């Protein structure tokens, strides 16, 4: 049984992960720490585990915690990853890794120093559709990849996601990294230039951005755009989408990771919903992290992957400020 601790339920994905763990036979939530003690106690009770008032107590030897899942606000990822590294456990950190290149590098370095592994939460890597696309691209089935059109649009998650002090931005820091990670993984190349139009267009009262389109150039010449907006209305039938159109010299492919659904029209509350079915990428990612924790195998998604994806979002913000493309890596 792999014993994982959850650090903070600030991010709604903490509930997804805890629920996924409950469905896994050989992984358990062995403890919760949260800087919001009330929330931490409540969640510990909900998932039938113990609350610890400090990270030190969570990682105390007698608890035998083997890995930590960090699901705090973006700005607190660094604090919590460093605490987990200090506690000597491998870490699965929610995306984006952090809100600055410097902080992300400190996190990577400190994990190395402590001899623990740092994995970043990019569950799209575990989508079977993405897996098949990756295989086709790697095997050259689509020829040379010329262009990719990506979207990761969603509803505005609200809460601290709208507070730049806690999130490090708005929609762009939230929604750039998943698709950029998939593009990097497919191409095995980095983004060398990014241009972005970013603004607050859907809720003008927000203190952060909620709309943005990135244009990117990869080092090998592939060009890509990404819509990272919180442009889905609150009554959209599902939270949002992750899609890619891939244009190659040998053919084209379209991936739509969350299209599998049953349409539901419910009279009682007047809603129309898309009920997803099939594959649970979160569960597979958690199981893979637990496998790495248990066996010492290298984690498949590294802190470096997290840093490079985040850097594109930071470059996009800089580009939108000056209305010019920005070269990457950031100076």
């Amino acid at each position, binding site marked *: 049984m792999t014993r994982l601790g959850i650090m903070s339920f600030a991010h709604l994905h903490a509930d997804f992960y805890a629920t996924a763990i409950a469905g896994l036979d050989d992984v358990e939530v062995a403890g919760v720490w949260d800087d919001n003690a009330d929330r931490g106690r409540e969640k510990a009770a909900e998932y039938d585990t113990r609350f610890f008032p400090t990270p030190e107590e969570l990682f105390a030897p007698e608890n035998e915690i083997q890995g930590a899942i960090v699901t705090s606000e973006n700005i607190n990822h660094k604090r919590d990853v460093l605490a987990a590294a200090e506690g000597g456990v491998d870490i699965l950190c929610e995306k984006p890794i952090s809100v600055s290149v410097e902080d992300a590098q400190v996190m990577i370095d400190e994990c190395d120093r402590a001899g623990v592994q740092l994995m970043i939460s990019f569950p799209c890597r575990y989508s079977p559709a993405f897996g098949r696309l990756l295989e086709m691209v790697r095997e050259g089935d689509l020829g040379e990849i010329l262009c990719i*059109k990506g979207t990761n649009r969603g509803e505005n998650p609200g809460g601290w996601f709208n507070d730049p002090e806690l999130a490090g931005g708005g929609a762009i820091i939230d929604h750039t990294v998943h698709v950029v990670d998939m593009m990097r993984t497919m191409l095995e190349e980095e983004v060398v*230039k990014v241009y972005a139009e970013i603004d607050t267009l859907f809720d003008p009262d927000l203190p952060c951005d909620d709309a943005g389109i990135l244009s990117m*150039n990869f080092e090998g010449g592939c*060009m890509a755009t990404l819509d990272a907006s919180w*442009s*889905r*209305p609150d009554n959209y039938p599902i939270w949002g989408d992750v899609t890619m159109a891939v*244009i190659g*010299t040998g*053919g084209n492919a379209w991936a739509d990771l969350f299209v599998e659904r049953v349409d539901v029209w419910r009279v009682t509350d007047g809603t129309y919903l898309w009920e997803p079915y099939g594959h649970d990428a979160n569960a597979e990612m958690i199981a893979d992290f637990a496998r790495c924790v248990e066996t010492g195998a290298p984690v498949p998604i590294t802190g470096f992957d997290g840093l490079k994806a985040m850097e594109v979002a930071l470059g996009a913000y800089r580009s939108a400020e000056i209305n010019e493309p920005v070269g990457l890596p950031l100076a």
Partner: protein
Amino acid sequence: MLSVAICGAGGLGRNHAENFDQIPDTEVTLVYDVVDEAAEALAEDVVARPAEQESDLWGDDVDIVVVTTPTPFHHDYTVKAAQAGKHVFCEKPMCRDMEQAEEMLQAVEEAGVTFMVGHVLRFFAEYVRARKLILDGVIGDVGIARTSRINTLPGGPESWFSNYEMSGGVTLDMTIHDFDWLLWTFGPAERVYSLGVPERMPPIDYGLTTIRFESGVIAHCEGSWADLGQFRTHFDIAGTDGLLRHSSTDMPTLTVQRRGEQEGVAAVQVPESPAAKSPYLLEDEHFVQCVLNGTQPAVSGEDARAAVEVALAALESNESHGEVIEL
């Protein structure tokens, strides 16, 4: 009865010729093409006279010249037709460079003739309905407008469409439809950034263009001549109060399968949405009404010029590998 001369006997020349023959107020009387056989073939089909030389177009027996040549020649025929006092319907894009646009606008204005460019989305019911919903405020203030227009390379690898210097590739030739609709709906554009691979023609061109409008709207336009399937279009327009979406392939009112030679295998499956009148016929009818009544066409010369300006900015941005083009 107004006499119509078709200048350029390609696919759209034929389309417009058939339309003008259906309209009670017009009759196609002359077909011109630099390739005599092409002019003769279309002339025979629409019961018109093939022109013996270009100057036949400027004869007293012609009222309307329909310019359906490759793009770089729109300018020359439009200017000459206007100077001869002919009304001009010109296919999109209006022209290949801004200098041509200015000269065309000047020529038609000086001649006082009716001039319209074939931005046919103005006559596609789904685009008209979407624009009305937006202007009626159904989705509030628009934030992001995404359009897609997806096709195979038209005319095959030998066609002039594959010649970037002539056609401007997918962005000038096809995505310009969406540029026009966006400008019509959201007002003037402020700046343009574009990625594309026109150097891959034939067989591939593909462009991703981001436009910032003065109103603040951000538009993203996908144009594809990289496709291997059926022509299709999409739009997804998100605003403060909601979302509009349409996909040409998701809602065909009629789908037909034909049984092939091989048992149980369809030769082809074609979805379609037949309309009482095609958008192209509606467009030509509108133009004829403007000629008869002396009224301003729905697509003004300035509108057509503005769409070319955005498309050329996109080409310039892509050619420069990363310049933001301010309009």
